[in-house]
């Protein structure tokens, strides 16, 4: 355990050193948060809630989106390409060590992002969550785990850095813009709302949003089951298809 932590600390240092994840995962949602607040923070977005209330949960999810769909697949593909994963086979440790520590790093990025958004919202923008905070954390964790399993699947199915890059672009940007993570879902025409409902992140954000606003959630268990199902299926398939080189 001590040796794993040592490995993790170094990987974490490297993750913080490359500014990509901090830019996309942390600075961007905080920036969008401030922007939305300047434009429409206290305006009513619907009955009894403001745009800030509505976008809080979505912006918390941006960190998950960045670390799950960029951080995880890009790091794994890069390490596979550089034979770093293969090298771990020639040591007494399993390559699971390095995969585990990188997943942990991505989790920490997502957490850092969530904490920053929450801090700015609460301290500077006077945000107060109407729903149960603990339940919200639970919904965040479930969304995180299910999206990470999708990221892992992307890393497993794509053999080369090039294909991972392409798939990342195809998955990350639609999820970012169409799932309600950055552009408030309420602004979409209803046709688009229905269409984007198929994106897994949309479901995660729906859940987090409903919990954060303390709303009566129709289908809450359906969404939870869906996310759990996604996690199970993606994890099993990615473990089965994973290639070390």
């Amino acid at each position, binding site marked *: 355990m001590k*040796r794993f932590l040592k*490995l993790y600390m170094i990987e974490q240092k490297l993750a913080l050193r490359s500014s990509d994840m901090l830019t996309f995962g942390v600075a961007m949602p905080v920036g969008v948060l401030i922007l939305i607040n300047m434009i429409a923070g206290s305006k009513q977005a619907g009955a009894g809630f403001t745009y800030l209330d509505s976008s809080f949960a979505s912006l918390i999810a941006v960190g998950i989106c960045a670390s799950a769909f960029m951080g995880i697949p890009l790091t794994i593909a890069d390490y596979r390409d550089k034979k770093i994963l*293969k*090298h771990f086979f020639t040591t*007494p440790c399993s390559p699971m060590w390095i995969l585990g520590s990188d997943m942990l790093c991505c989790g920490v990025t997502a957490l850092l992002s969530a904490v920053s958004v929450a801090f700015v919202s609460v301290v500077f923008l006077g945000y107060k969550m109407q729903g149960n905070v603990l339940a919200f954390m639970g919904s965040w964790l479930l969304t995180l785990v299910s999206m990470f399993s999708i990221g892992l699947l992307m890393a497993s199915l794509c053999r080369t850095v090039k294909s991972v890059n392409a798939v990342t672009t195809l998955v990350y940007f639609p999820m970012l813009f169409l799932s309600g993570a950055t552009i408030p879902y309420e602004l979409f025409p209803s046709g688009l709302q229905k269409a984007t409902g198929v994106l897994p992140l949309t479901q995660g954000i729906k859940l987090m949003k409903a919990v954060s606003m303390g709303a009566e959630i129709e289908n809450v268990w359906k969404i939870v089951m869906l996310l759990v199902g996604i996690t199970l299926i993606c994890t099993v398939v990615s473990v089965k298809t994973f290639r070390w080189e």
Partner: protein
Amino acid sequence: MNACIEVKDLTKSFNGRVVVDGITFHVEEGEVFGLLGHNGAGKSTTIDLLLGLKKPDCGTGTIFGLDPRTNRKAIFERVGVQLQSSNYQNNIRVDELCKEMSALYKKPEDYHRLLQFFSLEKFEKSQVNKLSGGERQRLSVALALINKPEIVFLDELTTGLDTAARREVWRHLKELKKKGTTIFLTTHYMEEAESLCDRIVLIKDGSKVTEGTVKNVIENSPYENLEEAYLWYMGEEVTQ
């Protein structure tokens, strides 16, 4: 002398193409052993099979009498490996890489001593990406030694290095040999094999062509040096 590596009838094919074809050899404790052949002759695949990274179609490879596929942990505490053309994480510094590799072993060597041994101590805080080719190869040997291995595998260690950098790496390997470490290397530079190896095996299209000490191998050919002898064994024209 005891054999610490034994390879018997090792065979592997990919998509119907035989890459390693019934190779048999052994490596004795404390010697520098060279596996020689053209690019694509099956050198790296042989190493992968021997290290248990790939599963042989038939035949066996053992290290310390153990099968690496079932005794990974025990073997790799005692064996160091440098894979062909391996790379490292972006932005990682030399000291961080050493610490990361040390964390994988129960009783690692003090990496400062290794860096000193390979004349790399002044690069401790440098980014690995910024090192020259020769410095990076010396670092990769240093990393392969971080668990104080009894056997070290070096795959195509000096490919792409200029003559001076290559000789610098050789000098370090010779010192390592004096300390009693068994070295298993692959190369397609005959000069390198002649300078370093006690015993060599030549392979062509996955099969063994000949084996023996460098001296034997040369004597059994009509030529005077290893490079010409090698080409003769490989069935190619030797132009004087």
